């Protein structure tokens, strides 16, 4: 019974949060509702007994949405409402509704046909973390490593893009040196 109560509670909360995310005109509301929705989703993992996935959901998405906040801070005045350019709300509603319907059909089709089987059924006595580790380092080793290499490439590229002037530290220079430096840049 508790599972049912928890499920409906968090289902309602998640949908409400994402509803706010899409409909609000306020960047701060949208971002906060997005973060809250992402965290509420982790409840479903906990209800299903997948503790590891639930915690990873919290850690990854709270960090990821944080990056969106940084963009929000840089591009908008987050305390004001935004005026979106939205030519036809009927079209948006229609396309969004159809996409949602498609997802529901895709997910529910195997349930209706009854041919649903766990590829990696729960093994008694082995924790969540170990089970994920085993699958990750045997069957999905190559995709896992490729993803790691991709992240490394992105990181190195980021460092190169940001690091062009990293040998200059303004906090170690005197005022005069900083002024000279800035003047030289203006002339150049």
């Amino acid at each position: 019974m508790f599972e049912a109560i928890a499920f409906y509670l968090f289902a309602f909360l998640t949908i409400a949060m994402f509803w706010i995310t899409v409909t609000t005109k306020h960047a701060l509301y949208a971002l906060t509702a997005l973060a809250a929705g992402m965290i509420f989703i982790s409840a479903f993992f906990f209800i299903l007994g997948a503790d590891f996935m639930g915690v990873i959901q919290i850690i990854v998405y709270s960090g990821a949405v944080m990056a969106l906040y940084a963009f929000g801070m840089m591009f908008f005045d987050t305390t004001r409402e935004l005026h979106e350019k939205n030519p036809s709300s009927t079209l948006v509603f229609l396309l969004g509704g159809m996409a949602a319907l498609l997802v529901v059909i895709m997910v529910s089709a195997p349930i209706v046909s009854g041919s649903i089987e766990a590829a990696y059924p729960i093994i008694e006595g082995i924790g969540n973390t170990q089970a994920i580790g085993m699958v990750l380092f045997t069957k999905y080793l190559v995709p896992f490593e490729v993803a790691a290499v991709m992240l490394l490439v992105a990181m190195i590229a980021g460092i190169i893009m940001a690091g062009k002037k990293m040998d200059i530290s303004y906090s170690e220079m005197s005022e005069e040196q900083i002024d000279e430096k800035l003047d030289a840049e203006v002339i150049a």
Partner: protein
Amino acid sequence: METSYLIETIIKIVTILLVFSALAGLGTYFERKVLAFMQRRLGPMMVGPYGLAQVAADGIKLFTKEDIIPTNVVARIFKIAPVITAATAFMAAAAIPFMPSFTIGGYTVNPIVSDINVGILYVLGVMAVGLYGPLLGGMASANKFSLLSAARGAAVFISYEVITGLSLLAPLMMVGSLSLIDLNNFQIEGQWMAVYQPVAFVLFWIAGFAETGRTPFHLVANDHEIIDGFGTEYSGMRWGLFFIGEYANMFFYSFLLAIIFLGGFGDGSVFGAFALLGKVAFFFFFFLWTRAAWPDVRPDQLMWLCWKVLMPLAVINIVITGFVLMF
């Protein structure tokens, strides 16, 4: 699910909430007294014996003060931000074992709300969500200094999250479990984890100051601008909630340090339980001691320390641990 289980869980949750809210209040008293003695002052002395009733006086003041919502703030987010800080601090406590299990009248009680097998990840993950409090508080305020402080605070939290995670990895590799109870039991037979992993211990300890936003990493308050950072526009109990969250986080982080690195409650005897409380008290005192002894570091020094010193150390520590475990 049994009714007894439900009642037990509710009692545990209420106990943790009450005990640590009260401790957060007392924590402010201890902080003032410790700082005062270290600076050759007396600290609070006027209300009650040795100023002990100062906590109650502060509480009454915070609760009865007018709750001001300034103009131009994003009211809803502004109101919810302090609640996030306080709530996530207490949510994180759900996976911390506060004492060894004991028996009352033939009924065994485990003083942990939920012993999930990813305990330490859960605690750190939920504590990390707590940084939404200062961030949202700063962004919702129509005040440049609040915004600055929020941005700076978020940068520090995110950077030091890396140190927390990487430094913990080496002890976790040795134990092979993420449950805090397993981490505690690992240290019963052998030495304390701090003996095997001194580097990880020190790194995790340093990162704790950033996670809880304490001096010398207290960048969420703009001390250099003589402005209180994200809390500038808050008043009354909303402002107090930020502090309850901060102090609760300090206590819970001290519990983590004691359980993971200093043997926790040991084999579960009465002595072990009191030893755990003693270790937690020491770590809490150390937070205050550092505040009395050190100034804040500059933001760029903080980032230098994080990315050029602590992170490489943590990674080297992991590699060495891996090799030792392998061969």
